[in-house]
């Protein structure tokens, strides 16, 4: 399954990057009085340079909130009024974080656009004073410099950044459904040029330090230091400060010019952009692209374009005004609430609430070198896990090893890794055909074919060779874990780890516990998943767990709709325009028709009429004709190597025509079709929470969005119920129930929410 672009880019902005600050650093200040009464900022004076250090208490990151803002104003006023001070350095005392952005709680606490506009305008005013400061201010950036942090940095006269992997500059506001509201939309285009500024603000992508230097976003780079007189992180910050001070002095003495030499290409671009016609073309082009990609479901990107345009065409006063207005509007939209909720959820699902496992997993063994097995290996070896990949035949093993190598090598091509690092990571992988060395394994993940008897066979084989503490994890999308564990001698060590394909791209990991699974086993599995960079939901065992179970009824409805005569292309466009990253018919092809049939059959047996809808016969006939989806080259569409545009598989028509079902006009409008799919999904998700398969609505939302591509702009099924209204959903379900039957009957929890409007999944 493929996640949407928006989801993918959300991942770049992972909180883990911002949350790696081991502690606080104490320093001596030349002016101790400056320390008094301030909690977020303090400053000292070195020679004639004020060193302003940001360090929000009790937090791993610095965020721009009210307190920090007012202290910053106070400190800056002192700096500006002091005769002793001629320049200033702005630096964070937290390793790995300059300023991670604005305080989200401050924004979510606002109930009217006016409040948000005021916040924006205050920040704009402050940053404008910084920009116009006659005493040069140098931003010394080490670690994440995002959102408001970047806006502050680009208001300064000069920027110096450490060339560290953790140093990332970016404007991720768009991923939260808002825009840079503190002058960023106005300053960024001037600094890096309109095209690059659009790219940063519309994708939210983080820019690494060396790239930032090339773009002109930072003026100097400082190399991170190794161990010396102090721990590396500590000394690196100190060194950054020392270098920044020399530049601050140089700027104050006019020995260094803050202006950058522009290259020829840059000069040409800026000349071209001085022609109004060219600018109009750019706006048009960007807008078209955004409309095409967002299908109009996300308001923020269009507003960003609008605000940038206003600033350039009508001057900065109009630009600032428009920026704060639009910022206020956007912060109140459902989309931004949904996206911020996802961001929070993602942060929560990146934590191990089961605590540290008794024994850290260092040796990982994976059974089956197929697409999944090799994918799991790929995300493990580059995290330093010693990984053994076992398969039954040399050919299958070789294919898996090549997949891992290719995955790493692609990163080399993108310059995310050096070839040396690739080789070092690749040597963490051992390929073998037997169980040699399994006596040292701390965890075994089986990713063999989805067949219960085969899984039983490998479980027994493995248990004969692994040590007592070793966890046995099964990667399955539908087989209940307790059935797999039935033949285990030690069921407390058996757990489910449901990865999503392609493993290196999909962020979700669904961990499934049986009543017998021990807490330590769960902690161990979560630990490994987090190490692999996954967002994790932990659910109870049951047919289809959570993700597969939610998807199945929707898929059943997909078949039904196809049988009613809606073509695959039409269906795809209806689902993508609702916000799904992949069309429903394409999704069946991607998952595999045989897998879909297998799941539908199994779950259909257990859940009976609630999973009714389309006829299994459609899938069966497709399988009999060899239309297994993308992997066989034909499904609803025809896939050819190297050909991007896919054509419909006309042979499907006869199958569908043979199994045609009557459509009911009053529930077959485009909107009805979309809601028939989504309400079944949502109803099943809420039922999962009701039955205790899910522990929290957050996990339900994260699982649906990151694993199944539920529209991110809706924030997940539970957020959707909250924002759209439970009553409206129940009404729709009732309407469809009347037309089709019990598969649309709303579950009890959903009806409870409908009957008491104050009840929300998120308070």
């Amino acid at each position: 399954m493929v996640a949407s672009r928006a989801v993918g880019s959300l991942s770049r902005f992972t909180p883990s990057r911002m949350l790696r600050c081991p502690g606080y650093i104490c320093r001596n200040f030349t002016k101790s009085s400056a320390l008094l009464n301030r909690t977020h900022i303090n400053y000292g004076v070195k020679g004639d340079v004020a060193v302003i250090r940001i360090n929000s208490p009790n937090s791993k990151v610095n965020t721009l909130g009210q307190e920090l803002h007012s202290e910053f104003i106070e400190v800056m006023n002192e700096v500006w009024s002091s005769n002793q001070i001629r320049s200033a350095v702005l630096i964070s005392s937290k390793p790995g974080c300059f300023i991670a952005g604005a305080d989200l709680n401050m924004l979510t606490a606002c109930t009217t656009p006016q409040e948000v506009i005021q916040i924006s305008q205050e920040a704009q005013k402050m940053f404008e004073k910084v920009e116009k400061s006659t005493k040069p201010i140098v931003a010394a950036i080490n670690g994440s410099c995002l959102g408001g942090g970047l806006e502050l940095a680009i208001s300064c006269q000069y920027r110096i950044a450490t060339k560290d992997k953790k140093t990332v500059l970016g404007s991720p506001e768009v991923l939260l459904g808002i825009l840079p509201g503190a002058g960023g939309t106005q300053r960024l285009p001037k600094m890096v040029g309109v095209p690059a500024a659009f790219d940063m603000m519309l994708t939210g992508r983080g820019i690494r330090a060396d790239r930032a230097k090339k773009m002109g976003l930072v003026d100097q780079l400082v190399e991170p230091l190794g161990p010396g007189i102090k721990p590396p992180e500590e000394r690196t910050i100190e060194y950054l400060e020392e270098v920044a001070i020399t530049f601050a002095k140089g700027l104050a003495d006019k020995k260094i010019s803050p202006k950058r030499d522009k290259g020829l290409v840059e000069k040409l671009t800026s000349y071209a952009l001085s022609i109004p016609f060219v600018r109009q073309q750019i706006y048009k082009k960007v807008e078209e692209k955004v409309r095409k990609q967002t299908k109009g479901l996300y308001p923020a990107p269009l507003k960003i374009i609008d605000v940038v345009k206003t600033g350039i065409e009508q001057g900065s006063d109009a630009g600032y005004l428009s920026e704060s207005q639009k910022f206020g509007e956007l912060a109140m939209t459902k989309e931004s609430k949904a996206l911020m909720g996802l961001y929070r959820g993602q942060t929560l699902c990146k934590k191990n609430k089961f605590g540290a496992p008794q024994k850290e997993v260092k040796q990982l063994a994976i059974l089956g070198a197929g697409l999944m097995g090799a994918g799991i290996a790929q995300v493990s070896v580059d995290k330093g896990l010693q990984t053994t990949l076992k398969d039954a035949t040399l050919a299958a093993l070789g294919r898996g090893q090549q997949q891992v190598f290719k995955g790493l090598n692609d990163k080399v091509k993108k310059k995310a890794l050096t070839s040396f690092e690739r080789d070092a990571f690749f040597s963490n992988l051992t390929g073998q055909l037997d169980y040699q060395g399994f006596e040292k394994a701390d965890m075994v993940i089986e990713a063999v074919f989805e067949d219960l008897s085969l899984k039983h066979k490998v479980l027994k084989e493995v248990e004969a060779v692994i040590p007592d503490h070793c966890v046995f994890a099964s990667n399955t999308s539908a087989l209940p874990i307790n059935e797999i564990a039935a033949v285990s001698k030690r069921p407390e060590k058996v757990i489910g780890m449901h990865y999503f394909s392609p493993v290196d791209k999909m962020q979700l990991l669904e961990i499934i516990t049986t009543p017998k699974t021990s807490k330590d086993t769960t902690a161990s599995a979560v630990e490994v998943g987090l190490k692999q960079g996954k967002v994790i939901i932990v659910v109870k065992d049951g047919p289809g767990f959570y993700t597969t179970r939610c998807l199945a009824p929707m898929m059943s409805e997909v078949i039904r709709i196809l049988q009613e005569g809606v073509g695959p292309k039409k269906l795809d466009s209806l689902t993508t325009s609702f916000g799904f990253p992949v069309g429903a018919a394409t999704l069946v092809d991607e998952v595999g028709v045989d897998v879909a049939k297998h799941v539908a059959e199994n779950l259909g047996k257990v859940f009976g009429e609630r999973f009714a809808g389309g006829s299994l016969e459609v899938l069966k006939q497709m399988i009999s004709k060899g239309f297994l989806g993308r992997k066989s080259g034909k499904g609803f569409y025809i896939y050819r190597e190297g050909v991007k545009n896919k054509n419909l598989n006309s042979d499907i028509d006869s199958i569908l025509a043979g199994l045609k079902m009557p459509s009911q006009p009053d529930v077959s409008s485009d909107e009805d079709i979309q809601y028939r799919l989504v309400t079944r999904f949502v109803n099943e998700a809420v039922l999962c929470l009701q039955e205790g398969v899910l522990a929290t609505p957050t996990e339900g939302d994260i699982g649906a969005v990151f694993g199944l591509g539920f529209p991110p702009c809706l924030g997940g099924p539970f957020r959707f119920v909250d924002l759209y209204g439970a009553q409206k959903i129940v009404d729709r379900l009732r309407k469809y129930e009347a037309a089709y039957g019990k598969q649309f009957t709303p579950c009890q929890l959903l009806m409870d929410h409908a009957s008491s409007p104050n009840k929300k999944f998120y308070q």
Partner: protein
Amino acid sequence: MGVSRTSAIWAVIWPSLRGDPEIIWSFIPFTLSVKPMNQDLRMTSLLTYTFKNLPSTSQWALRFSMRPLSCSSQLRAAADVQTKSKQTLAKPNIRNIVVVDGVRTPFLLSGTSYKDLMPHDLARAALSGLLHRTSVPKDVVDYIIFGTVIQEVKTSNVAREAALGAGFSDKTPAHTVTMACISSNQAMTTAVSLIASGQCDVVVAGGVELMSDVPIRHSRKMRKMMLDLSKAKTLGQRLSLISKFRLNFLSPELPAVAEFSTNETMGHSADRLAAAFAISRLEQDEYALRSHSLAKKAQDEGLLSDVVPFKVPGKDTVTQDNGIRPSSLEQMAKLKPAFIKPYGTVTAANSSFLTDGASAVLILAEEKALAMGYKPKAYLRDFMYVSQDPKDQLLLGPTYATPKVLEKAGLTMNDIDAFEFHEAFSGQILANLKAMDSDWFAQNYMGRKAKVGSPPLEKFNIWGGSLSLGHPFGATGCRLVMAAANRLQKEGGQYGLVAACAAGGQGHAMIVEAYPK
């Protein structure tokens, strides 16, 4: 009282000492620091120590300083009175290995007089120089080992080509080793191992580097096409290969100046290292100036006795190193940073320069040397190789190797009379000194309880170092050992410590013990 007693002794000894007054003064703190013990013993120890400086013809002195291996009982008796932790590093049942002598060609800035030579020419010059200096019969030499870093592809076993040309017996095998800047250290320790294990008695070890010429290759694409062309049989095949030619095939491939694993040049790493240890530009310049001044002094006083003149074909005879250029701090301050621009601290003036040169030493089993009538200069004792993170600790080899080799030998920092450390960069040397003096670093990165301590500068590279004398990568190790041996002979110390860092994050240290006179 102790002081007055010692003064009396000084009065007696003074006239017979041939060393300069500085050496005598350096004994005083040592005398005063001796813990209270039997007064006679203290005097004895003092005498033993001091008399090593006497002309070896003196019967009296010989009686005290004699340390023949056979008299172990005598050794034990004297151990209590020694001021050193150990009177000698000889080990029971292990052969003593000695350096009879060693030579080197003058070390020249690359691109000067040696620029038209090939590496084996330089190596040959060192070998002939050694033959001449030691008069060792050619057919006695069992084995020859050379170290080199940037290999000339035509003479990849440069040891063999040089030995043949230098007139060694064609029955003497030779091999070449490489371990970056500690290649000739590796050559010497390989020789030590061969002798200690009884495989050989007489081994020549050396090293050579010619940075005036480095192998610049065709690009991989071009090479591939040329190789395919040589295999193509028909005109059609050839034409089709040639048709694939693109102009960018012609862009050459230079030998990498960067660390392969990290892609970082050594100077860049040195700059970061200096910053990590908070070493200022001024400190680095001062240290470089010291190195050049000391080297100049040593050169002027004729102390660099390991240098042998080299008649370069078609050019004048080269008699001395040409990279020694004491400058002034003001001049040095004007230079721009060479690696981290514009604010780094490592410059051309405080880095070692690209150098051409070769060195060679004659290493024997002690009994063989004595049987052949040699008077060896030094024993080669315990040695240690270390390696660490090639990114952030690339140049900290000496810090890691020093405490280990001292521990292995059972010595302490105070026992060492001559330190010879390889100076890659001022910043690197100063960082190593700081690291060795840091308990925090020892505990957190080296897994040791406490620091080893930094060497006193008055014993440290006092005849100059790689910064001033030059650093032909493959040849520096032998120079360090000979400098240590010659200094011990000259100054009368007993133990010397040689240490060096090398690319790849590796390091080496070895104890050199003066051969008693």
